[in-house]
């Protein structure tokens, strides 16, 4: 059996383990053990991948395996990874690991919570290792459904509304996606061979006729774009994130939104390079707008999670924006931004969850001076904020600069002008981040009751520190990860030219 399948198998074992666990202690033991295993597996895969590459394996996707699954439609369970998937798998494993610690005290129904969370992570892992459109789509759906229950049952605030809205909007996206995938499938063999769902085969056959690409590209791009919070289909994100429990916000903003970006790469652009070039300007405008628009919206929000959700709209907008630049540097930047945003937004949501757990409010007008009360959490928040506004030495800077420099290398003036527009977001980001830092952490204590609150516990510290270390590591030594990504992108970029 291909070892990539372990990414799906380990969570399934974890679910079995959770199912037989009897008390909180056992649940935690199972969750920690298996999430550590996943992290180990992800690191092992990354190392093995790099070793293979160093040994000169120039195949586009490594560790491929394929088993026929449904003969009549030629559906395979096919897996394989390249540098981009490796990065995404690492991200997922890190966030699942941190998420387990962030939901140490989840109440009630802790067992069920972890079960659904694990199911979600199965979907995400499966999505990233799949190279068959159908399995990819299936895992995508597996990742979406648990979200409804996780928000609806363990959420806060208008949780029913938010859960319904999030699920319906994302389902709307997957409806478009389904159409797109079927379209791709039925045009995967223009010369009358066997129809296929395998991404690599379709790409190598250069199969899809140009006139069809015009229809299928927007379908798939918007379908994935909805999950990537593309303007104007982003409104599930603020409500959904605001209501979701901590670990779910972390996984959702940190990983699930990256499914959108990853899908845009892997399906929309990779399979339909012609339409990508012809139609990219439309989406470039939309994503360019969403970068600035999200940032401006975040400036006036008062709920911490809303601020962060809008900031995610802005940052994920930048991901799609960079993907559409269709050159190697910008796309490398896009993947790095996915990674960096995933880590820091997970950190943000973890911290917000921890603060909310103590103060029982997320309204920045009702809090203040938290630096004096919970210094550890506050310092982490400042670090997350600085990462978000692009401080050199933390991951945000590297990603944004790669995107800006890459985008600006585009030969077309229109693209360069839009890059400058997107650049403006760095100032607005500074405004809303510092606004929160100033109001929430600095200044005088607003509510005297807050003085009795305690600082972070060990599991909260572990969760935050894991993420901070990753953010700083990428920020300080970006070279290897940038090379890893850009080497894998060569194949995609070559198809574009």
């Amino acid at each position, binding site marked *: 059996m291909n070892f990539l399948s372990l990414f799906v198998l380990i969570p399934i074992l974890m679910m079995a383990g959770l199912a037989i666990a009897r008390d909180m202690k056992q649940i935690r033991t199972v969750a920690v053990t298996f999430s550590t295993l996943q992290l180990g597996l992800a690191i092992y895969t990354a190392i093995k991948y790099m070793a293979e590459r160093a040994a000169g394996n120039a195949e586009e996707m490594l560790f491929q395996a394929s088993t026929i699954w449904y003969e009549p439609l030629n559906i395979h369970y096919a897996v394989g990874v390249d540098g981009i998937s490796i990065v995404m798998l690492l991200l997922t494993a890190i966030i699942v690991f941190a998420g387990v610690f962030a939901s140490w005290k989840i109440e009630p129904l802790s067992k069920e919570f972890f079960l659904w969370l694990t199911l979600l992570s199965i979907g995400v892992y499966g999505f990233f290792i799949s190279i068959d459109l159908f399995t990819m789509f299936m895992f995508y759906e597996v990742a979406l459904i648990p979200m409804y229950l996780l928000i609806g049952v363990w959420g806060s605030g208008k949780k029913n509304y938010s859960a319904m*809205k999030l699920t*319906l*909007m994302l389902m709307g996206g997957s409806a478009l996606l389904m159409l797109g995938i079927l379209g791709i499938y039925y045009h995967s063999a223009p010369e009358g061979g066997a129809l296929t769902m395998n991404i690599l085969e379709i790409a190598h056959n250069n199969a899809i006729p140009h006139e069809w690409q015009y229809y299928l590209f927007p379908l798939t791009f918007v379908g994935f774009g909805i999950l990537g919070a593309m*303007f*104007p*289909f*982003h*409104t*599930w994100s603020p*409500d959904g994130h605001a209501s979701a429990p901590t670990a779910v916000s972390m996984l959702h903003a940190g990983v699930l939104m990256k499914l959108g970006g990853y899908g845009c790469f892997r399906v929309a652009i990779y399979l339909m390079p012609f339409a990508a070039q012809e139609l990219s300007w439309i989406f470039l405008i939309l994503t360019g707008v969403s970068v600035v*628009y999200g940032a*401006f*919206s975040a*400036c*006036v*929000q008062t709920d911490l999670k809303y601020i962060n959700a809008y900031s995610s709209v802005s940052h994920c907008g930048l991901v799609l924006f960079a993907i559409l630049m269709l050159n*190697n*540097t910008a796309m490398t930047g896009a993947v790095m931004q996915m990674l960096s945003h995933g880590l820091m937004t997970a950190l943000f949501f973890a911290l917000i969850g921890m603060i909310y757990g103590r103060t029982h409010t997320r309204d920045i007008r009702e809090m203040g*001076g938290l*630096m*004096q009360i919970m210094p550890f959490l506050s310092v982490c928040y400042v670090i997350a904020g*600085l990462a978000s*506004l*692009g*401080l*050199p*030495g933390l991951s945000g*800077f*590297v990603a944004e*600069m*790669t995107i*800006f*420099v*890459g985008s*600006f*290398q585009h030969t077309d003036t229109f693209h*360069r002008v839009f*890059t*400058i527009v997107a*650049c*403006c977001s*760095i*100032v607005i980001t*500074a*405004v809303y981040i*510092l*606004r929160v830092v*100033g109001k929430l*952490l*600095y*200044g*005088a204590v607003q509510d005297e009751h807050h003085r009795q609150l305690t600082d972070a516990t060990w599991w909260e510290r572990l969760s935050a520190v894991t993420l901070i270390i990753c953010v700083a590591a990428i920020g300080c030594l*970006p*070279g290897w990860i*940038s*090379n890893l990504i850009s080497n894998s992108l060569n194949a995609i970029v070559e198809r574009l030219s």
Partner: protein
Amino acid sequence: MEYTVFILALPLAMFLLLGLLDSKLKPRVAGILGTMGMTVCTALAYLTAYQFFTQPRNAEGVIPSQVPFNVEWLRFTEHLHIDLGIYLDPISVMMLVVITTVSLMVHIYSLGYMHGEKGFQRYYAFLSLFSMSMLGLVVATNIFQMYIFWELVGVSSFLLIGFYYTKPSAVAASKKAFIVTRFADLGFLIGILILSFFTKTFDFATLTANPTAIISESAGATFLGCSVASWALALIFMGGAGKSAMFPLHIWLPDAMEGPTPVSALIHAATMVVAGVYLVARLFPVYCVTPEVLDLITTVGAITALYAAIVACVQTDIKRVLAFSTISQIAFMIVALGVASDTNLHTGLGYMASMFHLFTHAMFKALLFLGAGAIIHAVHSNEMADMGGLRKYMPITHITFLIACLAIAGIPPFSGFFSKDEILTAVMEKSTFWGVWMTVVAGLTAFYMFRLYFRIFWWKDTDCSHHTPHEAPATMTLPLIFLALVTCVAGFIPFGELVSVNGEPYHIHLNWSVATTSIIVAVCAILLATWLYMKENKKPTAMANATRTLHTAAYRRFYIDEIYLFVTHKIIFGLISRPIAWFDRHIIDGTMDMFAHVTQWVSARIKGLQSGSIQAYVWILIVGTLLIATLTICYCL
């Protein structure tokens, strides 16, 4: 000279050590550790300077620049990559000396000044972070490395201004400083993008070796009537103007005085604020190919110089006076760079003058701030009204402060005289108009500095019944004495021999006509200040009343802050952010919700058909059957 790496590595290690251990260290230990780190760093910088300036010159008489260390950090494209390295040339070595010296003085001084403050360890951690970033900025081998450290100094400045984070004014000031400079950095970033797009390099050496590349590569592309090259360089200058607090991006600097005073001395007087000057100097050969940008630089500098000098004359907070004085002095350096038109030794005199003034100014302005710190430490107030007659209580502070005032006013033989004289000479040669303008500003400088001096040390005899101001401890006075000594002798350093526009030695000689004029102007201004402020009297109030409008306007800094507040709050927040947020919630989200509502409404309308009443179903069944039967029959017939 590979050891130069440690000049950067040492403060970084200190930052990590002090930052991570934080309260686990005793404050005293943290302070001493930080100071020792900085001492070693300073020693290394001096060694570097000694070795660098004494190395043999090449055939053209130029001291060859060196790159002892350079690693690729991040590769973007085939040509574009960010390196982290160390680039040693006369100005960067000069800056190394300036930064480490002032930083060391501040480290020592803070042992006394910050004694007993909460967060002492954090303070030293931030100081180390700042020193590291600033040193990294000046030794940058490429423009993107400079941008990286540029951002880092911005953040250190933000953290240090907001050191007293429970004080709302400090929080607001730190936020303002960061956002205003960030806005300027946006210009810098875009400038870098444009520049690198055309020249295909970030490297300073490549850029300056072939300065016309951007002109030839951009092939005469223009935007709004100016060439792309001009736009790129003007935008880069915008970044510099933001950091160096040039009008109209100066508004953050006066507010930044909310930070601890030693921080003001280090960051907001001697080092970070001259980063803009340094940036222009670094890219000077490139600026030379776009004279219109140099003209812009001159104009911005001259306006700032006059504006800040006028405002400084009426401020009552001693740190604000010094802040505006800093703005004005930096503007001198900027003007000097602006008037240097090419890389010829004589027409490019302004370059040398600017760097010389940067050097001397760093020393005497740090001295002034540290002196002000000692005074604030003694009287626990920033306001002039609470001071007066302090000369008796604080003799050392008094003498050193006086030396610094004489230096900044341009009185020989103190260092400021020599550098300012070079600047005025350079400006005079280029344009008489700006020459006269800058001479007037120099006079104003002498006036407001002596106003400050007399108001602090003379004016009245303090009522000492409840609290006697006393001289600062030795940790604070030693740096003052050291810097005062430097201020006395710095003017005699053969600066032109070491730093000049094309690297060839330039022998500084005073232009006596300019020098005499400026001395006369300065002396007159000092006499005027003496007449007005030596003894407590009603003349200043009377003058203020006579020019009420002007006085109020200057006191309120010509309402620039209010304009900014209006723009940010009313326009950015009120007219952009809030409407966008509303639009998002009500229009975009409303549309999405509308889909749901329409679906719900339709289903509510048609659900009545599914009534559950069998009798109704049977009716429909029968009617339907009959209808179909009738239709079938009609059709068949």
